[in-house]
């Protein structure tokens, strides 16, 4: 199969969506810029017209609300936020309106909206140009949240999100943009709510989210060199998330590490850990390990950034802890 980078896969998904469905349009910031969206939307305005690709004023709240209204009026909008940090200015239309609409009108209307937001951190950008806030949205009923980690899912999850009759938050990570992988040319949908096993192993399960799924694969390589076979699950969807797949893996490995690029307290990793600790309590031989950001905002200077973001090494050490306890108990 031909290979694309993650960013090329996102671009291709947009192109195919707009070609196939006149209801799809894009609105948000940076859409006419050659660099603002990291190349993921390059030239779409020229190809599909600036009426369908609206580079909007910096009015995140009203622009996102407009996308909700357009979805209710029969369109399939993708509202784009080049940085997830700025989506905080649009919490009312996302949570109060889009996520609640189906429920509070007893299913008479729903909001087929894709909110695309980008995690764009590192590079000394500081605390307001870096945040991975997916756990806040994962909290909200009626809102689906997906975070692709591979080029194939970057395309397949965007296609699935647009086809979904509900609001879907699609979060991509700029650190993944240059990763390459096989991507089918045709239109296909990665099912929302299904995790993917990226590597099989019997000793420890590592659930990775987005960028940390890629880090988990690197960690698994290191662990394999030490005789430890890790099973790596790329979660892909945060809400709904694939509990059966994770439980099935934990039944085999009896140890779980959750690696997430968000903060620790009340984070995505906490939710997964709590669920597996409850549902899989008798299958676990060690406490669930979490590899997350510390509970601090992102620092700016390079030296501090390097200490702040977890690397594969942190996952490897978590695996040692999980296994060491069992080995210690056995000895």
């Amino acid at each position, binding site marked *: 199969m031909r290979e694309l980078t993650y960013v090329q896969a996102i671009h291709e998904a947009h192109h195919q969506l707009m070609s196939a469905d006149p209801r799809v*349009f894009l609105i948000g910031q940076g859409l006419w810029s050659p660099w603002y969206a990291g190349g993921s939307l390059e030239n779409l305005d020229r190809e599909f017209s600036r*009426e*369908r690709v*609206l580079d*909007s*004023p910096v*009015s995140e*709240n*009203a*622009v*996102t*609300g*407009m*996308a*909700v*209204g*357009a*979805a*209710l*009026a*029969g*369109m399939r*909008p993708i509202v784009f936020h080049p940085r997830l940090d700025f989506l905080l200015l649009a919490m*009312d*239309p996302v949570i*109060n*309106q889009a996520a609640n*609409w*189906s*429920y*509070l*009108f*007893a*299913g*008479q*209307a*729903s909001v087929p909206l894709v909110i695309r937001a980008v995690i764009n951190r590192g590079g000394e950008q500081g605390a307001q140009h870096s945040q991975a806030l997916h756990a806040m949205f994962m909290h909200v*009923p*009626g809102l*689906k949240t997906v975070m692709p980690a591979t080029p194939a899912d970057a395309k397949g999850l965007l296609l699935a999100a647009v086809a979904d*009759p*509900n609001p879907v938050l699609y979060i991509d990570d700029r650190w993944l943009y240059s990763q390459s992988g096989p991507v089918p040319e045709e239109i296909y949908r990665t099912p929302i709510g299904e995790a993917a096993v990226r590597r099989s192993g019997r000793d420890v399960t590592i659930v990775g989210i987005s960028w940390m799924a890629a880090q988990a694969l690197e960690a698994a390589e290191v662990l394999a060199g030490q005789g430890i076979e890790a099973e790596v699950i790329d979660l892909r969807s945060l809400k709904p998330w694939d509990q059966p797949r994770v439980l099935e893996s934990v039944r085999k490995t009896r140890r779980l590490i959750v690696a997430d690029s968000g903060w620790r307290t009340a984070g995505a990793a906490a939710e997964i850990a709590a669920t597996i600790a409850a549902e899989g309590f008798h299958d676990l031989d060690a406490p669930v390990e979490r590899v997350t950001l510390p509970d601090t905002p992102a620092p700016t200077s390079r030296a501090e950034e390097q200490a702040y973001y977890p690397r594969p090494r942190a996952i490897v050490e978590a695996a040692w802890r999980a296994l060491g306890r069992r080995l210690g108990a056995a000895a």
Partner: protein
Amino acid sequence: MSNTSAIPSKSFTGTSEGWLLQRWQTMLRIRRAEEAIAEMSESREARCPCHLSIGQEAIPAGVCAALRPGDTIWGGHRSHGHYLAQGGSLEGLFAEVLGKTTGCAGGRGGSMHLIAPEQGISGTVPIVAGTVPLAAGAALAYKLRGESRVAVTFFGDGALEEGSVHETLNLAALYKLPMIFVCENNLYSSHLHWTERRVADNLYQAGAFHSVPGERVDGNDVEHVYAAAKHAVARARSGAGPSFLECRTFRWRGHVGASSDEDVGVRRRGELAEWLEHDPIRQAEGKLATDLAAYRAEVDQEIACALAAARRAPAPDAQRTREHVCAS
């Protein structure tokens, strides 16, 4: 009176006795329905918060008369009048307020969440200004599809204190959206008089900075409201873009519930007596030659039938609580 003295006097032609009779009956239907809801709210038969628009009926009656099938309206927490003026069913409203399955939102929304998609009632929500950008998005959808449809967003004067309204005014002007901003200025945001929230009495100018033309309208004169709305609708349909109407009015009851706010310690400056003299329904009656007795009886009968049906309807089964979180 002082609060409306700035309104220029206009004469309206083009509305007939029959037209005004229909608008009068719409206003009376809203009034009687809300009086029934007020009673149910006071007796606790209706338990959801009910925000009544008694005294403000001419605005929805006038604006919705200027719309045609396919147009949509979007509302807020005080939207019984919008729903009824746009053709929402009385039974659907009463049943919704009572939390019954036959309510217009299936008993899920209560008074603050009204919907009737087939009538162009797209939804009402209590987040102040919540549906203002949504209406703009619907208008954008109509424009992208080349449809000759108009979206109307109704909101109170308090909504002008929300940033999203100002963002939306700019976006609507920029994209020349077929929409109308209808500000129902009843002078109070909950318990706060406008002078406690603003320096200048100039809401009709809210759009000027964003190139959205604004007009101050006597919101208690259904013909004046209609004339202004008709002009705004024509402008929207022609592709010229959005308009802003500041409709001056006064709510007779308190912010929420049946009583005036006096009981919760809100002093309303004694304006109510003046505004009662400016009753939109009585003003319309003054212009009608028709004997209204039979038309009054018709409204009373509609209300009684709808109320009885709503009371008979079943309450939802508690088992359904998890339904409709997501559409499938």
